[in-house]
Structure formats: C-alpha cells, structure tokens
C-alpha cells in the first residue's frame, strides 16, 4: 500500500486542537472553525530496501551524459569527494548517515582502481566548520580515521587565498571561484542530500565549494526578489545563477560526477512519533507522550531542553539515489523530492500560521537566534511552494516561536553584531546591503570562520535576504510568544497568544479572514492552485 498523500483539513467545531511547534517545545492550539484549514504533509515514503545495492547500482548506471563511476577511475588520478555539510539533513539522521554509505562505496571503487590521491572535502560554502564529532557522524569512524589524520579530510575554506582558484566569469559577469583541490582534480565526486528542492544540482559545487567573491553574485536581495520561489528551480533566479556558474565550471574542463540522494520524512524517533501524526489519529499512547513530554519540557532549563532536542537523530531513510551528469541527475532528484513532499492546496489564504521548531539548517547543535527564526519562517517555510505562495499578497504570516534573545557566540558571532547594528538601523533587505562588504571582509569574522566554528561574517545578511520575498509579499508578520525586544528588532509584531495574533492580523487582512496552518515538520511543498 502506498503511503498517504498530503492532506488539507477544513477545521470545524469537532476538529481537535492542532500541534504548533514552539522552538524547543510544542503546544496545541485551536484554530477558528469554518475559516481555517490545516495542511498536513504526506506520510513518509517507503525507503529503499537495500540502500547499499541501490547505491552501487546508481554508481554503475549513471544518468545523462556520464560513464559509470568505475570507468572514470584510474591509477594515478587525483580524486576529490565533496559532500554536503552539517546543515543537512534535518534533524541529523541516525547512523549510518547516507553520506557515509555513498562515500564508502565510492572509496571502494577508488581503491579497486588503485587511486592513491584521494581527498574528502566538506562543502561548507560560507557555513561553519564541522566538529570532529559531526564529521564522524556524517562519515562514520572508518572514513574519518582513514583520512583525517593525514589531512585528507578537509573543510572547504572560502577565504583561503591559496586554496581557491579563479576560473573566470559567466556571460553575465558572475565571477566563478571555487576550491582549488576540487578544481584541479581529475574527477570531482559530489555526494549530496537533497532535503528541499533548493538543494543540489549545480548549486552543490557552484555554491558549496565557492568563495564569497563568487557566492555574492546570487546570494543577494535582487536574486531573492526574483526567485518565486527559490524552492522552485524553474522560477528561481538563485538556480539560474548557479546553473550558469555550474555550466561555466563544466566548460572549464572540471569533471563532476554528481551523486544525489533523497530521504523520506520519517523525522522523529518512536518516543516523539506523535509529532508527525495527525492529531485526530493520536491514540492514548500518543496523548500520554504529548502530555508527559510537554510537562517535562516545561520544568527543564533552556540548556537542558536544547540539549535534549539537538540529541534527536532522525530515522530518515533513503528513498532514491541517482548519479551521473549534474542536470540530468538533479531533474530526477527533484521529482523524487516532490514525490515525498508535494501537497496540492486549493487557493491562497489571508493568514498563514506556522509553528517553528527548534532547528534550521544553520543552528544544528546550536541556538536558533532571532535572525534564524526569521529565516526559517519567512525564508524557508514561506517559500515552500510551487506556483504561488500559500498566503495571498498583502496577507499575514503568524509564526509561533519563543525567539529568545540569545546567540551562540562561537557559531554566530557576526549575527550578534548584525542584530545589534544593522537591524537597529533598518530591517529592509534592500537597505542592509550597504553593510554587507564591511561584514564580509571583517578580519575577525574571517579568522573565526577559518579557524573556529563560526559562520562567515556575511552569513546573517544572507539569512535576511532569504526573507526578502516574504517581506515584499506580506503586509505584516506576527510572532506569538516571542521575546518582545527581539521580535520588535526584527521588525515584526509580538503577540502573547494566537488569538491575539489573529485579531491583530485582521487589521491588515480584514474581518473573517481565511487561515491556513502548515503542520511542519515534517517538510512539505505546497502546490497552490
């Protein structure tokens, strides 16, 4: 029996309260009947039964204009294997991570071919460096111990003048500068996890292994305002720019063998399985789990609660793997992502509500600071659509999240200054760019990015650019239960309760508005008719 597709529930008086994530916690909220609907993601797809066999098959039966991996490998060649970093998947998956499974197979083939010059690179782009524990989790101890001691497990450094190579510019003048080891290899194998449609394709190399000089050409406010949405590659300037760069990289003779994987949405382990069930299907055990966990969370301190949630390892499972030529591979990947995540929704809504969870791509094992709250809600979840946004132009987004006025000083140092300096001046994504270069070239941020575990100095700007389309589209953003100072600094309106927020939203959208709640995670993409 195939898994159930996504579902849109019209709320009436008999509808049970719906679960809202609230950062490191969750709660049940009642939505106004006869005017509200809840969009549920599809059930997790059935996983591939023998992942290793499927991986081997994909490597030996590539898609598009590509030979099998084995025939691309020969003694004396220089092989580089790049892989997605700690921002994927979410939450981190239970071991073995799919990157480990894939890379082990690639390394087996490389060993069989007698290749000695092999290196691994975490494709960080401008993200923070991974810790040893995170690398071990993604790659497994065997790979880590075989490569790391010899300096052959590297993390891409977008600020290393000796580790980058400038390839030239695209027809539109976009500078292409990528990792030198990758660019000077006889073959670059890229191992991806495609959690959302924005990931993968040419973006893997053109962004993941690029420098700030290169990334800035598409990570900017103009690109975001012309990407509707950036999750829909056919209407995304972000993708267009990456595709131009990716094709340019190929034209320079850099050979990329792309391996892309998709996972199902089996997001939470058994003790939290109620979090991905539809509320009216909760049994006594689910209700008891909800009550007990809610009670326990309410008496825990912030640190303990954060540690608990970030210890969750998702039982995500492989649903597809395809390898070969980048564009051909990615087309199949996107089809498989949408097979898992797509939900058909009839028409737009006046008010879109969402409960934001504890994690986003940029706060794995870290704090979801106010800027990341904005990015998760308005950058990621708002943009999870094809066609048109779930909420109409001039509508309102209501997000629930505590939005603590807290930052991880090791991971997000420039975010603190961005919050204190830039957002104090303006929250307009088009205006903040005047500060960008100063942050991007700040030697202290550069130092922390290169030697510590800090995101690049420019990264908070990207998070804010990510919100540009939503801010341009919406009339108002309301945060329920957030730290008032933080919410106001973001330029949003704070509300104490959902009822208050709905009443406030009516100022913008009028009386008796339609309300749509997206019940995420697990992730979904809405195709809005």
């Amino acid at each position, binding site marked *: 029996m195939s898994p159930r597709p996504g579902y849109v529930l019209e709320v009436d008086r008999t509808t049970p309260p719906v679960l809202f994530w609230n950062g490191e916690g969750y709660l049940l909220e009642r939505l106004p009947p006869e005017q509200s609907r809840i969009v549920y993601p599809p059930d997790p797809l059935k996983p591939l039964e023998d992942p290793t066999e499927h991986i081997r098959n994909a490597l030996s039966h590539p898609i598009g204009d590509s030979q099998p991996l084995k025939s691309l490998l020969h003694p004396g060649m220089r092989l580089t294997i790049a892989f997605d970093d700690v921002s994927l998947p979410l939450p981190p998956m239970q071991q073995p991570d799919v990157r480990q499974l894939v890379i082990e197979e690639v390394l087996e083939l490389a060993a069989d071919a007698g290749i000695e010059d092999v290196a691994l690179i975490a494709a960080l782009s401008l993200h923070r460096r991974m810790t040893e524990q995170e690398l071990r989790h993604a790659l497994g101890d065997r790979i880590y111990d075989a490569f790391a001691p010899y300096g052959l497990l590297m993390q891409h450094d977008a600020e290393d003048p000796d580790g980058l190579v400038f390839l030239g510019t695209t027809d539109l003048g976009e500078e292409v500068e990528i990792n030198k080891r990758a660019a000077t290899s006889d073959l670059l194998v890229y191992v991806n996890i495609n959690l959302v449609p924005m990931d993968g394709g040419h973006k893997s190399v053109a962004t993941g292994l690029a420098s700030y000089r290169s990334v800035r050409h598409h990570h900017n406010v103009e690109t975001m305002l012309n990407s509707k949405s950036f999750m829909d590659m056919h209407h995304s300037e972000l993708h267009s720019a990456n595709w131009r760069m990716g094709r340019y990289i190929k034209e320079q003779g850099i050979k990329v063998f792309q391996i892309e994987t998709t996972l199902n949405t089996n997001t939470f382990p058994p003790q939290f399985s109620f979090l991905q069930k539809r509320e009216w299907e909760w049994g006594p055990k689910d209700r008891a789990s909800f009550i007990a966990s809610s009670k326990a969370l309410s008496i825990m301190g912030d640190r303990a609660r954060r540690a608990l949630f970030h210890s969750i390892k998702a039982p995500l499972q492989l649903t597809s793997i395809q390898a070969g030529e980048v564009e051909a591979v990615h087309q199949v990947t996107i089809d498989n992502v949408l097979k898992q995540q797509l939900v058909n929704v009839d028409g737009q809504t006046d008010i879109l509500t969402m409960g934001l969870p504890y994690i986003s791509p940029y706060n794995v094992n870290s704090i979801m600071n106010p800027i990341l709250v904005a990015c998760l809600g308005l950058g990621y979840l708002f943009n999870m659509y094809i066609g048109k946004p779930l909420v109409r132009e001039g509508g309102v987004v209501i997000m629930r999240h505590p939005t603590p006025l807290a930052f991880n000083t090791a991971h997000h140092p420039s975010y603190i*200054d961005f919050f*204190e300096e830039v957002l104090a001046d303006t929250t307009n994504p088009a205006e903040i760019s005047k500060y960008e270069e*100063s942050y991007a070239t*700040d*030697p*202290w941020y550069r130092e922390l990015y290169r030697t510590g575990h800090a995101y690049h100095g420019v990264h908070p700007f990207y998070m804010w650019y990510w919100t540009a389309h939503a801010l341009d589209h919406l009339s108002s953003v309301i945060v329920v239960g957030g730290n008032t100072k933080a919410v106001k600094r973001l330029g949003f309106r704070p509300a104490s309760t959902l009822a208050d927020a709905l009443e406030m939203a009516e100022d913008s959208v009028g009386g008796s508005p339609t309300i749509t709640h997206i019940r995420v995670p697990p992730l979904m993409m809405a195709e809005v008719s």
Partner: protein
Amino acid sequence: MKGLLFEHNIPRIAASRIISRLASTQRGVNVSPLRLLDIDRPALPGPQWQHIKPILAGICGSDISLLEGKSSRYYEQLVSFPFVPGHEIVGTISGSSDKQRVVIEPVLSCAARGIDPPCRYCAAGNTGQCINITSGHLHPGLMIGYCSDTGGGWSVSGLVAHDSQIHPIPSEMSDADAVMVEPTACAIHAALSLPLMPDSLVGVIGSGTLGLTVIAALRKYTEVGRIIASAKYPHQRDLALSLGADQAPGSDEISRAIRRSRHSTVAGMTVQDGADIVFDCVGSRRSIEQSLEMLRPGGHIVLVGMGYKTAIDLSPLWHRELSITGSYTYGMEKINGNTRRTFDMAIELAYEANLGRLVSAAYPLERYEEAIEHAATAGSRGAVKIVFDLERKAHRSFTATHTSRLEKHEYE
C-alpha cells in the same frame, strides 16, 4: 523659607545606604540625614560675595550617591556639615535691579576662600585642582552644595557666591539650558582632557546627563572621528544620536560595536584594537572593566562618572599600556591655541545645543523625595535630568514639552 539640609549623622547615612539598596532611593532618602527645614539664607562671608536666589537647581549623580549613603569616605574631610546640597544652579543676584540671571561655578577655590596669592593650580586657572579646599575663611567644602558656609541650590532662601563664581547668562537663554551649564562644563573639561585626532575612535559609556553632554562637547570642541556611545534606553539612544554620536548601541553592545568599527580581533573579552579613548560616564566597576576591554593598546580611559572604592583587575592596564585619568569639574581649557574658561564654553554649548531639552522634570522642593527618586531612576523612566523648581513657576513651560517627548520614547 524652606530648604533641604544634610546633617552629619552616621547612623542615618548607614541606614540610607542599606534601605536604598534593599528598597528604593526614595525610602533611603526618608531615613537619610536630609531634612526639609525652614532655613535662613547664609550670611555673606565677605565683601565680594553676593546672595543668589535660585530659580532651578539640578540633582546630580553625586547628590544621589550622597543621599543613598554610597559616597566614599574619601570625601568626609572635604565637606563641612550641615550643608544645603545643590551645585547646578541658575538664579538671580538678590537685590539686583535688573534681575540678571546667572549661573554659579560652584568650586570653592582660592579666590572664594580669600587666599591670596592663590595656589599654583588656581593661578593657572585650574580651580578644580585647588589644593586649598579645606583652608581659608570658609569651612571645608569641595564646592557650593557641600560647604556649611555657603548654602546650596536646594533652598528657596538661596545661597551665597563669590564674584569669581558668578556668570551672567544671555537673556535669550532658557532657565533649562542654564541649569545644564554646570554639568556641561564638567563634560567639556573631560572632552578636552586628552588630545583627539580627527580619526580618533571614541567610546562613551553611559548616555545619562554626563554621557550626553560629553558627546555634545566632543562634537562642538574637538575633531574627534567616530563616537560610539552606549545607551541603555531608547530615549537615551535618540538623544545620543541627535547630539552627535555616530552609533548608540545598548550598554552590553558597545564593546562589539567598537570592535566592528575597527574590524579588530578579540582575545578573551578584550578587543585587541579598540577605541583610542573611552569616556566612562558611569564610574562603576563594570563600566571601568568594560572600558579596559574596549581600548586599543596605549588607549586612555577618562573617568567622568564619580568613582568609588572598588576592586578591578588591572592586568590589561599594565599589559596593554592603558591609562586612566580622572576628570573633575572644570577651570580653563586650551583650545585652538587659546585659553578659555570652561564655564564660558559651557554657556555657549548649553545654549547652542539646546541642552535644556535634557531637563525632563521639575519638582517643587516640598516633593524632594519623589524628585530624588525620579533622578535616581531617570533612565528607566524616560528621563535625563531632574531639577528643583525653587520659584514654583518656571517649570511648566519646558517640562511639558520635554517630559512628553521623553515619555513618548519610553513607550515606543
């Protein structure tokens, strides 16, 4: 006529210290040795002295420290009891036919004390450094407001001032601007205490009266480059920016703002290449530590806020060759090759910068407990400077404007 008298009563001083800390300044004042009494105006100490009838008299941070029992015992020998507090004064010369308004330069230096020849510091015009503040024909006292012979501004009956202390003000200057002259003079003296280059990066800790007037003074009388001032409250931020600060981050944010400005690295808590000068207008242990953390090597702290006994790790002072210098009152300033009296400059600045806008509320003397409480909690209540309105008439015109503007900021 009514006046507030502060007596030497150690048990009451101790009680006010405890109660201020545990309850509120107002309750501390209740038990302090400050009493509202009928007070006669003081006798003229000599022929060159005048009776002054105050119009407005400000409440200074040093007054609050005194009333909360927090002042250092260092000052015990430098004052004489009982005294009428109040050293920020605009008033008129009693008996003068033209009702000329004057501001008082309260320091009781050699001239006021009848010491001739004056000490070498007074001779050079640096009256704030006078070494004779316990000598001469007056009882000890740093200044009017701390001397048993002179009276002070917190008295309807008035005070006495030596001719050398009396400064006429222009007729177009408001009373509110005028009552700001004395703190402004302190700020100018601090701002000019060290040379500042056009590209200097300056930090100002605190955006209360002293911090805001230091910003105004830096902009008016120096070529300082960038000024970053910490502001705890929104109204302080707005005022700091309007008076010339380039940036006004929160009080916990200033170190990072200084670092950002210089693109410096950080070691531990210390910005490696930070501000050239930090004006500490708070004077607390934390503010001094914060200052030490945000200076460049060889940088300077100017302690503008009144210091007190505290323990501070001086390792960065030694290792990074920092210096700390106090800044007390005023005298003569060297500026652009000329020498000017600080008070003349303060009159000029207070008028030009409309510093009377910092006066947030005026109280009649009878409501002194509320007034002092308001002054002690000024920042959190959207206020800056609280004054006594000794004539009970002048306050309405300006307080209506200023308090409504400040309160508006508080609730934004």
